[in-house]
């Protein structure tokens, strides 16, 4: 039985449709990330769940109860904000204690709970410090402890790591997941960082223009994107527009070059399709004119990513990205002629609709308020 349900949520800001019919169903103790670019409506959805805003249509149900019109201070939801949300006039301990204090809990009980939570987030030693005496990462740990103190029914996190540096971000996201699993708390997490979402979630919902494009397990989202937008947003993807020329053999014409894609078998002849290939599945070797399912081109750039190096290859008018072990990439410097072999069985295929392919970028709008 679902624990948190968002049913047909809609929210307009003037002429902008921030949410256009959001449906989410989340089981108790599950961790869902709302992932998408700026302006996609993910923060708006979270604020509706928290009660800071009211939907124009739709309902929010928690544990079988409709809370759509319930005031935020009566919802029993803990929220961690992006940054700077700690009360500056209170120490870390007082911040964590605040929710219990306004709920009238006994002082000894409060003290014990605060001690436990500060211990849980690794800040038992810093309880007497004011927010300005804590680093960004420590402040977010306190914010997490404060949100957990009231034993919320749902934990809401609004890009809690976006203001932190890369190393702390990775460390803290793992801690958030550890604590979430330890407490078994139902969690809704908003982020624009796909790596963050994929690494900590049970489910990921990719949002675009106020809608959920696809929702599923992280591995599913990565390996089987349902829409061109999801394919582009989750990980890095080569996109080749083409036309099915032989449905029996699964061959697709991509601008004068024919490649075989298993997924194209059975598609109507002449159908417009989008071939999606992950960079790590592209095999690159010095050009020798041999081998099937290859595109011949020239290496334009190298991008060092540690164990792998990313090569950008220009083949005719098509631009391809391929990841290969750094040690081998040195043999193919920019300017080299190469053959890029595409895996026929690992390439995904999407029907190309009349709608223009989305470009991922900043779309500031009221949904991101």
């Amino acid at each position, binding site marked *: 039985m679902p624990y948190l349900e968002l049913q047909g949520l809609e929210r307009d800001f003037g002429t902008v449709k921030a949410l256009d019919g959001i449906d989410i169903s989340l089981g108790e103790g599950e961790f869902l990330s709302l992932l998408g670019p700026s302006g996609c409506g993910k923060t708006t959805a979270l604020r509706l769940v*928290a*009660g*800071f805003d009211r939907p124009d249509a739709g309902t929010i149900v928690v544990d079988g109860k409709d809370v759509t019109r319930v*005031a*935020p*201070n*009566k*919802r*029993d*939801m*803990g*929220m961690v*904000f*992006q940054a*700077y*949300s700690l*009360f*500056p*006039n*209170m*120490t870390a301990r007082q911040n964590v204690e*605040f*929710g219990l*204090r*306004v*709920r009238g809990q006994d002082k000894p009980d409060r003290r014990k709970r605060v001690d436990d939570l500060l211990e849980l987030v690794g800040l038992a030693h810093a309880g007497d410090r*004011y927010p*300005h005496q804590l680093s960004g990462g420590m402040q977010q740990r306190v*914010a997490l402890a*404060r*949100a957990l*103190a*009231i034993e919320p029914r749902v934990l809401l996190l609004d890009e809690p790591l976006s203001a932190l540096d890369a190393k702390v971000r990775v460390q803290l996201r793992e801690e958030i997941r550890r604590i979430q699993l330890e407490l078994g708390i139902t969690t809704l997490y908003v982020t624009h960082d796909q790596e963050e979402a994929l690494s900590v979630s049970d489910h990921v919902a990719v949002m675009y223009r106020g809608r959920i494009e696809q929702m599923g397990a992280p591995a599913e989202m990565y390996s089987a994107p349902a829409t061109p937008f999801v394919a582009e947003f989750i990980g890095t993807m080569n996109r080749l527009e083409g036309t099915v020329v032989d449905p029996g053999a699964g061959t697709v014409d991509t601008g004068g070059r024919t490649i075989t894609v298993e997924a194209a078998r059975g598609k109507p002849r002449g159908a417009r399709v989008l071939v999606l290939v992950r960079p790590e599945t592209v095999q690159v070797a010095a050009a020798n004119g041999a081998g099937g399912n290859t595109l011949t081109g020239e290496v334009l750039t190298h991008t060092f990513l540690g164990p792998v190096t990313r090569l950008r290859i220009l083949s005719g008018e098509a631009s391809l990205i391929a990841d290969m072990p750094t040690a081998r990439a040195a043999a193919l410097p920019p300017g080299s002629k190469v053959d890029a072999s595409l895996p026929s069985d690992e390439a995904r295929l999407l029907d190309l609709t009349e709608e223009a392919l989305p470009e991922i970028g900043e779309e500031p709008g009221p949904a991101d308020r």
Partner: protein
Amino acid sequence: MLIGAFKGANGGWTTSNVSQLVHQPYIQAYRESIEISGVTALLGGAIGLALAYAAIRDGTPRWIRSLLTTFSGVAANFGGIPLAFAFIATIGTIGIATQFMHNQLHLNVWQGADLFTKTGVEIVYLYFQIPLMVLVIAPAIDGLRREWREAASNLGANAWQFWRHIGLPVLMPSVLGALILLFGNAFAAYATAYSLTNGNVYIVPVVIGAYYTGNVFNNPHLGQALALGMFVVLVAMMLLYIPLQRRAARWAK
């Protein structure tokens, strides 16, 4: 001023001017000045804070804030004889608003009292004290983050609990500073009170004016001693303010 306060009419050194300050009628003048300044600072501060918050908080149309700050900029600098005349002509005993209420609505708002008293001076002072508070406190209110209010609400706090535990404590250092400014502003005001009451309200600046310009009571050295006394009062206020401010801002960087 410091030297003049200790000089006599014949040019010699004396402490008699300063020693007179702790006796009547001067002690009464200080009491009246401090009362008027204190009342208008506290009332002006409270009303100005509420007005500024109402105009700045989320959900209030932007134009209301612009209107309030523009008006406050003008009103905070409106004082002296024009202000006194404006009030006399409007809500004085025969002012246009008083007459309208009396003749048309049969309301006797003053009930035998009038504008030319200490209470009247306080009402008129509020006309520039409230806008001054609005101007001074607006940036501090801007600094109240929406996240604090939302986090408090999320944790179960109602509006009163937010203001009691977070909003007011965070604003307190700025509020204390603003109150001191308002107190000083009213404490040093002369022309408004003098022109409104024709000198009948016995406050220190009016007494100093009398000793400087009066034909009968001309005694500039006593006036300088009274000014020195005002300086001492303001220093005392600052000495009270500093530890309070330090305590209120102990959490700040």
